[in-house]
């Protein structure tokens, strides 16, 4: 019999903490669902009573750095104020009295190093990546000369994303592009820009006072660079397949599968249901 607590301990022992559990830590696991976010919809659709949802995004909506910055979060009153929130309470109630659990293990997504998420992101978009640099989170792909916009048009449906925020000239042809899952930092973008053959990057998000003006300033100083931000979940969740493989080793005999999310948001000129599960 293997429990959520056993998996948690194994992750921490392997240096893949933090790993936190909500719900039943000591029930024998029947099924493991790997999901970027343990959304209410994903949890509702689970087929087994004793399911462990292994997620990257915090199930109660704190930032991924929560445990690194718990003191700051407490100063902001987040812990106290979130206690009476009806959404958080309703989600917590989904676990009360049951035999399922959520296991939040954000660093598990970096299965084979920091480039794991970016590699899965690139491959899910139909790109063949070059050997990733083990020290950085970005990966690259070489390809026949194609406009960045054409590449984006082809990749968005494969990522099951309807829109992206873009910067730079979508008509510029590129022969090598980079990929950064999650929030692309100026340091990661700089590492890609150092290679003059890299014409642009696909990323999860860029912060408007960090990565976005970095790209703007680079262009103004003579380094044009195309960028498409397709969303955090879309850029990170495909690494769930590698996470699932690792968990099959940790939980032999358990039914381990991935659940992918659809976009949480929709842009103003389209409508979509945002129930959170496809």
């Amino acid at each position, binding site marked *: 019999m293997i429990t959520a607590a056993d998996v948690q301990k194994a992750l921490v022992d392997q240096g893949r903490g933090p790993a936190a559990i909500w719900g039943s830590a000591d029930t024998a696991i029947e099924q493991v669902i790997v999901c970027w*976010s343990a*959304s*209410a*919809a994903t949890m509702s659709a689970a087929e087994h009573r004793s399911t462990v949802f292994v997620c990257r995004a*915090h199930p109660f*909506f*704190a*930032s*991924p750095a929560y445990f690194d910055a718990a003191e700051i979060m407490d100063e*902001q*009153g*987040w812990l106290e*104020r979130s206690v009476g*929130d*009806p*959404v958080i*309470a*309703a*989600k917590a109630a989904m676990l009360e009295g049951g035999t399922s659990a959520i296991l939040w293990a954000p660093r598990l997504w970096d299965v084979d190093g920091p480039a794991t998420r970016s590699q899965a992101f690139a491959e899910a978009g139909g790109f063949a990546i070059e050997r990733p640099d083990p020290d950085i989170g970005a990966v690259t792909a070489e390809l026949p000369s194609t406009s960045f916009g054409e590449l*984006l048009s082809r990749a*968005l*449906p494969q990522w099951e994303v309807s*829109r*992206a*925020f*873009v*910067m730079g000239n*979508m008509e510029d042809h590129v022969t090598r592009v980079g990929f950064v899952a999650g929030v692309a930092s*100026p*340091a990661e973008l700089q*590492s890609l820009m*150092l290679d003059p053959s890299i014409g642009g990057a696909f990323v*999860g*998000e*860029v*912060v*408007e*006072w*960090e990565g*976005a*003006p*970095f*790209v*703007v*300033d*680079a262009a103004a*100083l003579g380094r044009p660079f195309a*960028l498409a931000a397709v*969303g*955090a*979940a879309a850029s990170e969740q495909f690494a769930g397949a590698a996470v699932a493989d690792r968990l099959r080793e940790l939980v032999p005999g358990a039914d381990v599968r991935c659940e992918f999310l659809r976009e949480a*948001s*929709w*842009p*103003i*000129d*389209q*409508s979509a249901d*945002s129930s*959170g599960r496809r």
Partner: protein
Amino acid sequence: MSLTPQLVVTRIMEDVARRGHTWSPETIDGFKFGDPERPVTGIAVTWMATVDVVRAAADAGASFVITHEPTFWNHLDAPPQDGTDASLYTAKTRLLEELGMTIWRFHDHHHFAFDRDPVLDDFFERLGWLASTSGNSIGARTDLEPIRLADLAEHLARRLDTRAVRIVGDPDLLVRTVGYGAHDLASCIDALRGVDVIVMGEVREWDAFEYFRDASLLAERKALIDVSHAAVESGSATGLANWLRGIVPEVPVIDIRVPEPYQTFAVGS
């Protein structure tokens, strides 16, 4: 005595004090580049001192830029860490030196050293909501005639001149009350209890997006409208420039708009 950036900042602090507000040394505000004692030929006020903005300021004869957001792509305006490439940082600082520019950040006090937050007031005014909004900080509440969520989002896009608007929630949700949050769920979770929708300027997906995704299925019919940070705040430079002209009459004061950094690319574009 010639006007210097330090003297301009001193006058700003004196004006803040005269209106009964305290200048806190424990904020992000301060000089970020250049010489505070170099004579000021003109002042450019902006939301962000990008390379394009700095060049425009120099072209207009300004030697002192007052910026709301960082200049060097991180909250602290820290130089790149050891071991990381610094070529863009070096290129930007070289440009600033060549232009003889001094940069001062005015962010925290811009929000709270006035009787009302001028950044939010500018935002509400552009939306036509100033008269129907109570409060003037995180947690402000706006009462509206009932409007569909999708139509409300279009209203924001039109009035703020942006297409970087995203919605989490039912497009047919009837909205009567709007709350305002900053960049994360923690900033609006209290206000959320009394409103139908929260408008935020640039949120990360891992907290607010997932919260509202769950909210649509769990406790309440609530929604989120996420607008770009620039669309919410960059217009406030105009009011800031007007205020500065009153306390620094010796030199020209201009405001330089910062365009949104990105466009929206949809499938089929």
